[in-house]
């Protein structure tokens, strides 16, 4: 299994609150394939800044409401 990225997202929740927008609709508005949007939503792919901003723009929210970065604690250092 691929190592999950340290970036999480709220796309599923934001789609639900946007009249249950489909993945296909969001993908079309952002300009990526539905498979890529699914990969982003599942945390299997970290999109470019441009795509990240486009997703935030579609929902009308700041970028940090869509994506969150959770760095792993460094080895040997207390969390």
């Amino acid at each position: 299994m691929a190592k999950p990225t340290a970036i999480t997202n709220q796309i599923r929740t934001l789609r639900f609150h946007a009249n249950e927008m489909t993945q296909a609709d969001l993908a079309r508005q952002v300009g990526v394939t539905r498979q890529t949007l699914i990969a982003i939503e599942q945390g299997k792919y970290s999109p470019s800044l441009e795509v990240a901003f486009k997703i935030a723009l579609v929902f009308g929210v700041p970028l940090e409401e869509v994506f969150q970065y959770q760095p792993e604690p460094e080895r040997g250092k207390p969390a």
Partner: protein
Amino acid sequence: MTAGEKSAVSVIAALVVVGVGYIHNVLGMAEAGEALTMASLRGSVIMAVIASVVIIVAGHIAIGIVDFKEIDFTDERDRLITLKVGRNAGAVQGFTLALAILGFLIEMQPVVLFHVVWAGLVISELVGAGSRFMLYRRGV
């Protein structure tokens, strides 16, 4: 299964089927006592190349018909995967090319050298298709 995954599977299937057929054919010639020279293998090699091209093209036409919407459009993730696939396949090609150069230096028979280079191309395609499948399935 996405179009990218289907494409990778079709390439792997075509190369494995043709490769097994070619090896079976060459082993048959060896068992029959035929000398394995470039002249005697030329027909088998040409047939294997044509068969693999035909199977791969037919597979992609079928995928294009089934997934015409998906195959028509690529994005940044597809391009990233293509770059990584090229890197992996290129590494295999480089390694086998180095083997072929080594074979040339130790005066290996031309028919063996040819097969080292050809196997390198086929294995690099297999590695490329395999890594494409894994990257689409598991994530980039």
